[in-house]
């Protein structure tokens, strides 16, 4: 199975998976500790509206996805600050409106929409070289932001009220955090698709929290777990395809592997808790 490593497309897929893991580990950690899972789900589904617009107007759908994710992130940031109590409803609206617009735009697009499934469920094995470069750039942006503003991000994620009293610009920090979630969504769309992004933003980080103390270690462990899931998913998809001639998309495999690991991790964690 290691012969796959010699194939350029497989190498690219591997690199794309690792780059996505960096984004999902760092941003996912904040998503989990700040309980933003549904916000991130809303953002990724809103991004599908941008994918559809890309098809309709003939530009790269990933560009549309990035634009829609960032815009809806900004809108949700404002909504979160203004009407916290009804946040749940607003997320549901962004979530479904994004999908509705995407489907509407695609149906208006003349002719057949190739590749649409790859945005819904990911298609990492056929990732174009340009995307690898984009994912790398987004990773750099995410890492630099979090390294520079770690104290502020942690303060706001932990206790917004106290951070505000201490003079931390809570609003801008929250907006930046949502923008980072939007960017992470973009790097993950190619790997698992808009529908499954929420899983990679939550499962590796939630697993990491069971074993790591401190946000930094949690991030590193979540990156490692994300890398393990995407890499093993890739090899599994490749193996199924070459050995058994089964064409199974990688995205769902990555998610199922992640859930399996999470179940094992949770039971080990619970067992350790009982042993004490």
């Amino acid at each position, binding site marked *: 199975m290691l012969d796959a490593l010699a194939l350029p497309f497989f190498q690219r897929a591997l690199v794309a998976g690792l780059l996505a893991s960096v984004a999902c580990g760092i941003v996912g950690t904040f998503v989990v500790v700040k309980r933003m899972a549904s916000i991130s789900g809303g953002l990724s589904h809103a991004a599908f509206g941008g994918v559809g617009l890309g098809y309709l107007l003939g530009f790269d759908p990933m560009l549309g996805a990035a634009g829609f994710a960032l815009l809806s992130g900004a809108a949700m940031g404002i909504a979160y600050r203004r009407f916290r109590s009804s946040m749940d409803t607003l997320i549901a609206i962004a979530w479904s409106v994004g999908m509705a617009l995407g489907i509407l735009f695609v149906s208006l697009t003349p002719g057949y929409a190739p590749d649409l499934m790859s945005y819904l469920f990911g298609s990492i094995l056929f990732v174009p070289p340009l995307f690898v470069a984009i994912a790398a750039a987004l990773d750099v942006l995410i890492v630099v932001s979090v390294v520079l503003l770690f104290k502020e991000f942690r303060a706001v994620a932990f*206790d917004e009220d106290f951070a505000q009293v201490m003079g931390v610009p809570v609003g801008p920090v929250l907006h930046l955090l949502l923008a980072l979630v939007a960017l992470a969504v973009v790097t993950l769309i190619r790997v698992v698709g808009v529908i499954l992004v929420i899983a990679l933003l939550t499962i590796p980080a939630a697993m990491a929290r069971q074993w790591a103390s401190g946000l930094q270690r949690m991030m590193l462990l979540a990156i490692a777990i994300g890398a393990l899931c995407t890499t093993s998913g890739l090899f599994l998809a490749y193996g199924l395809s070459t050995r058994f001639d089964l064409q199974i998309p990688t995205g769902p495999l990555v998610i199922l592997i992640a859930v399996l690991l999470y179940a094992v991790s949770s039971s080990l964690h619970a067992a350790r808790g009982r042993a004490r």
Partner: protein
Amino acid sequence: MSEAGADPGGLRRGAESVPAIDVRNVSLSFRGMAVLEDVSFSVEPGEFVGIIGPNGGGKSVLLKVILGLLKPDRGSVLIFGRPPDHSGGALAYVPQYPPFDPRFPIRVMDVVMLGRLGGQRLFQRVSDEDRARALEAMREVQVEHLAEREIGKLSGGQLQRVLIARGLATDARVLLLDEPTASLDSAVVGSFYELLERLSKQMTIVLVSHDLSVMSKHVRSVACLNRRLHYHHSREITREMVEETYGCPVDFVIHRHSHVVLEDHTQGAPR
């Protein structure tokens, strides 16, 4: 600045006479329910004020308004003559309940260091002085041995003391505390109030508590807060309660819909 009234922020007076906290005609309601109505009072620098009142009387809400976390519907709040969100780190507070997820992966030391954020600019690294101040604050409430522990592994009383240390680690000139001793052992409570008395020589302290005996022993003046006009009978109860507890006449400043007492009886209260 017009909403601050005739003398906006005391700017025309000498700097030493600007009140630490100046609350004027503050009203606030949630979904049509009045929580604070026309509340006015001011706290001079160096005062140690207690706020008492029935549950749901708006005490915690008033603290949040003073902190700038809630905007009043009407009226104004000035901290040393400036709005709370521009008070330049003059404020710190100790919340009643931990407002965060107790499973958040963060060590005690890092929680207390949040109190040092005010003096720091964005991107700036933590200095040795910040660390020293955080350790000193932890020593004051005897949690320095827990510095490396995750907050999820603390007892309720330990966590409350960590929150107090976080408030003490700040450079604030005004410290607001909301029922800070609610989950503390009685053994710790005594030394905690001694600590507050010591601190009150250097800073302004506002303490919300329902523990009237504690109030009478340590606080230098007291305010009684009940938000609503239809509670005339409860005002009477509160009045008797207060007078009985403090053993001295307490003047009620009664506003139309609420009553706020702020009567300095430094002479009467034991120091």
